Structures are given as structure tokens and as C-alpha cells.
């Protein structure tokens, strides 16, 4: 995690330095223009649970993955607005029948979510920060030893935040590192994902 943060910091510093030297690889908003853009990001994710996830273990941290998609409208201002969705795997655990005497069969449990949020973001130079307000379709899946699969889904209020630094590939495409955070405070779930983000401005007017 420290290495990833260091890489992000180095990217930002090098880009700022490049800008000062007149380099044009950093993303600079086209002033006096509005635009629509799509961005996707993805990466591994570390999930932190406030409480243990089952009474069978003391585990509260898991590796998962995060994939986020946004469609954003950039008016002729620094603030842009849009919709955020995607997929996030918070945790998955497997238990043998010896782990769960009461069930006497193996079980695999998975907790995943699809965010659906209003996205608000701001850019300054190549740096971009985004807040997602709304919730998550939180889904829990039990896969039993007898091949029974049972899924339950609820809607849970939550927020997300993303911070990224984008480098221009060409006039419409840019790419850069992103840190993605999901927070479902009622469920006691915090997830942090270092991601790679790609952005495409598909309409400018």
C-alpha cells in the first residue's frame, strides 16, 4: 500500500514539474467548453469490517476488487456531475464442514455490491476528486456443499470517494492512478482500492 501511495505522489510531483516546464501531457480542461465523459477504473481492494464477518473467525480484513464506471457531464465550470456505478467484491470466505459443526457441510460466503450513486467531481490541473452519494445494492451469496446457491440483496446507503491524477493520451483520452474508497457506515464496511483509471471525453460542445 505504501508503494502505491508513493507512486501516486511521484506521478503528481512529476506532472506538476512537467507543467511548470511547459509540458502538455497533464490534462488541462478545455476552457469555455462543456463535455460528456465516461471513465472506468479498477483494481484490487482491501476491505475493513468494523466487526467480525462471522462468529467462526476473528477476521475483519479481506482482499477483494473494485471496478467503477462513471458518466459525467462537465459544464463550463470546475464542478462536474454524473452517475457512478460498478462492482465491488468486499469479501469471500470458505468454510469446511469441520469449521461449522452446526451445518455439517462446507459453505462459501461472498459479499459484493453494485454502487448506484450521484457523482460530483472537481478537477484542478490533472488532479481530480470525486464524491459518490447514494447507496449500494449489497448482495450476499451462500454456496453450500450440496450445490445450493442462495443470494440475498438489499439496498444500503453509502458513499464513495475517488481521487485520481490523469495524464493525457490524446485530446479525448487520459489515463492515471486513482484511489477509490467505499464506505457503508451502517454496515461497518470501509474499502480502499488503488486503481488504474481511464477517461474518454466522447462529446464536447
Amino acid at each position: 500500500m505504501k508503494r502505491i501511495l508513493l507512486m501516486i505522489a511521484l506521478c503528481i510531483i512529476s506532472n506538476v514539474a512537467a507543467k511548470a516546464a511547459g509540458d502538455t501531457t497533464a490534462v488541462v480542461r478545455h476552457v469555455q467548453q462543456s463535455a460528456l465523459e465516461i471513465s472506468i477504473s479498477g483494481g484490487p481492494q482491501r476491505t475493513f469490517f468494523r466487526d467480525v464477518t462471522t462468529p467462526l473467525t476473528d477476521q475483519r480484513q479481506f482482499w477483494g476488487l473494485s471496478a467503477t464506471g462513471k458518466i459525467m457531464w462537465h459544464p463550463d465550470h470546475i464542478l462536474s456531475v454524473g452517475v457512478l456505478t460498478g462492482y465491488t467484491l468486499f469479501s469471500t470466505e470458505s468454510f469446511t464442514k469441520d469449521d461449522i459443526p452446526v451445518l455439517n457441510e462446507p459453505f462459501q460466503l461472498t459479499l459484493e455490491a453494485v454502487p448506484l450513486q450521484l457523482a460530483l467531481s472537481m478537477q484542478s490541473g490533472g488532479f481530480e476528486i470525486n464524491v459518490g452519494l447514494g447507496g449500494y445494492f449489497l448482495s450476499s451469496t451462500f454456496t453450500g456443499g450440496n450445490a445450493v446457491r442462495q443470494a440475498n440483496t438489499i439496498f444500503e446507503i453509502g458513499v464513495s470517494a475517488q481521487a485520481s491524477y490523469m495524464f493525457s493520451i490524446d485530446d479525448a483520452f487520459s489515463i492515471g492512478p486513482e484511489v477509490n474508497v467505499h464506505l457503508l457506515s451502517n454496515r461497518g464496511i470501509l474499502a480502499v482500492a488503488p486503481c488504474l483509471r481511464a477517461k474518454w471525453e466522447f462529446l464536447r460542445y
Partner: protein
Amino acid sequence: MKTFLFLLAAVTLVMNACVSELAPVIYPTIDFEAITSTTTPLTIEQRAQMNGIYILQEGRNSFGDTVAVRWDGEALSIYTVKSVSFFYARGGMRADSARFIGYWRAVQGPETGEVSLNILASEGGKDLAAGKGNGVGLVLRGEVTSPGSQRPTAMVLTKIKALANRTRGFEIIGHRGGGRNSERLGKSENSTELMLFASQLGATACEIDVYGTSDGIPVVFHDPTFTPRTVRGAYLIGDISNYSLKQIRGFVRLVNGEQVPTLEDALMDVVDKSSIRTVWLDNKDPRVVDEILAIHQRVMDHAATKRRSIRILFGIPTVELYDAYMKSPLKGTAPVLCELDLASVRASNAVVWAPRFTDGLQSEIVEQMHKEGRDVYCWTMDDPAFIVRFLTEGDFDGFCTNYPTLLAALFYTRKDLK
């Protein structure tokens, strides 16, 4: 740049806007074995002699002027209105004096401490040992510790009269097994542990909620869904009726670590291990009416073998439950508590009518119910002003409350009960 910083600050605020956890309450560790092994247990008559309304000469700042002292089985209990506290002490006679040790606990906050009380021979101990008199004038003298205080403070209580009572009897009914404020007690709502603890809080009865699992087993649980308010365990989400009892047992615990109890296990434990005399089943799931009535029969048979007197009321809180009950082949096998209109109360032959307190005193209807041989329990009474008003102006046979300690203190120390 300012806007950018503002947004950053807003994000930070949102990310930190979590509800803070309540600090765990650590009860004092009391060596009850040391006191019970060196004292002689009081007889039932001696306990009755001690029961009463006591005034405080010392300790008023913490616990008010007047408290109720009442034996519950082997435990000496004290209930206070000020700071809404209960005392739990064990002990007995030593020749012509008595000694008790235990702890006290404020139910609305984290405060707790140790207590030790003595009855000197010259302050009622001789009469108590001899079983003479009604206990008026008996003095409990000792000290209590408080959080943050290095030195114990004195506590002196003198009995002035017998506990207030009511000819028809009165049930102090702990809501959700003993009180919804259970997060302060270290025991989860609707847990067996809370039901067994309820009498310490002053409850004579408890109300518990019943849902059915996907495999049709009645369990004690309040909400239709699993939420972090009631359970710990990340994978059980959504309706409780989606999960089998085995899944619930395997992957979830109540917030203080207890198992979600089955109705049958909980009632058997209440019969075997508590002094609770009435259980109100607040049934939420019409699918499992027959199973609940069958469990009632089994538990009552078990109670009969134990010679245990207990009343388990089958609650009808909704029209759906009423319809399911009226269609059940086991209808009439359990005493019914009905929360619906009077026609439904009569049609279901309910022994208890349970209106909500917001409908008012309803004195004429309550009187009519009494004439028909039915009791009337009112729910859910938590506010001291309402409790006092309904106790003195109304004629109810019990209140369901989240604060049985408060209700016990107010009920037993009232002067003008009907």
C-alpha cells in the same frame, strides 16, 4: 483552489461521519460465594419483612429520597427513580445481624459500582432474626462505590412502609426480553440472557418477539430483517425468513455475542432459570402460528413437571396474526393477548387486552374488560410522567416498558394506587 479544498474537507467529513460505539460497561466483580458461604439465607418470611419502601438518610445525592427494596428469589434488589438504578445483592443473616454485598447499575448510562449493606442487631437485625414485626424501622447501613470516585460513599436506608401493591396484581413487563435499552446492559434485546436478567431489572414479566425462519422454526427476534442494529455477521442480510435456523446459528450472533434463540429454547430457559411469571409472545409471523402454539403446549407441559407457575400469552398484534390464529387447529390451546379492537378480543377469547398508551386511559373500556375477566396491559410506557399518571389515574394490570427498573421503582413506591 478554495472550492477544491472545501470539497476535500466535505469528503473527509462524510468519511468520518460514523456513529460512535457505546463504551462497554464493565460490571464490578463480586465474590458472591464468599458472602453466601458465610451467611444464612433469609427465610421467605424474613425477606417479606425486609421488602418495603425505604427512605435514604445517606446517599440521596446519587439515588434520591425514596427507593423500593424487594427480594427476588435469592437476590436483594433495590430500585431507584433518581438515576434509574437497580441494585443486585446477595447475602444473609449472621446471628442477629445481616450482611449483603453486590453491585448497583444505572440503566440509562454506564455508571456502576459496588455496594455493601448491613443490618445491625440494634437497627432491626434482632427482630429480623426472630421474625418479629413488619420490618418498619429496619435500617440498611453501608456504602457504595461510584465510577471515578476513589472512596466509597455512605448509604443508609430506613424502611418506612410496605411496598405499594395492587389487589388485582400488576405485571412489570420488560420490552424485547427486558428492555430495548439493552445495549447499555451488555445483553442483547430478545436474547435468552436478557430474559434471565429481566427480573434483576425489576421485571415480573417479559415481552419477546417471534419470527419464523425459512425452515419454519420460531425464533426470538424483533425485526423482519437482519441489520447491524441487532446482529453481528456480514453475510446474513435481508429478511430473516430467507435463512434456515442452521444458517442463523452458523453465521450470525446478536450484538453482544449471544445466539439468536429459538422460541422453545428461550421459553424452556425462562421456565427453568428465572422467576418471570408471565411471557408475552409478540408474534410477528403468521406462517408459524401452529408451531408457536405447539411450542406453548410443550413448554407448559415442561413447566407442569417442574411445578413452575408461569403464564405464556400468545400475542395477536395484527389482523394477519388474528386471521392465522382463528384458522389454526390449535386455536384455544394457549391464553391469548390481543392488541386489536374489542370485537377481536372477544372473538379470540383473549385473556388480556393490550392497547397502546397513546390511546389514553380508556377507563370505561378497561373497567368493562375487568368485568369480563380480562386483564389490560398497556404499552410501551417509558416516560416517568406518563407512568405516574397511568398508575394513579388508570386501572391497568401491567405495563410493558423499556425501563422495568424505573417502572418498578415508581410502582412499588407510589402512595395512591387504585
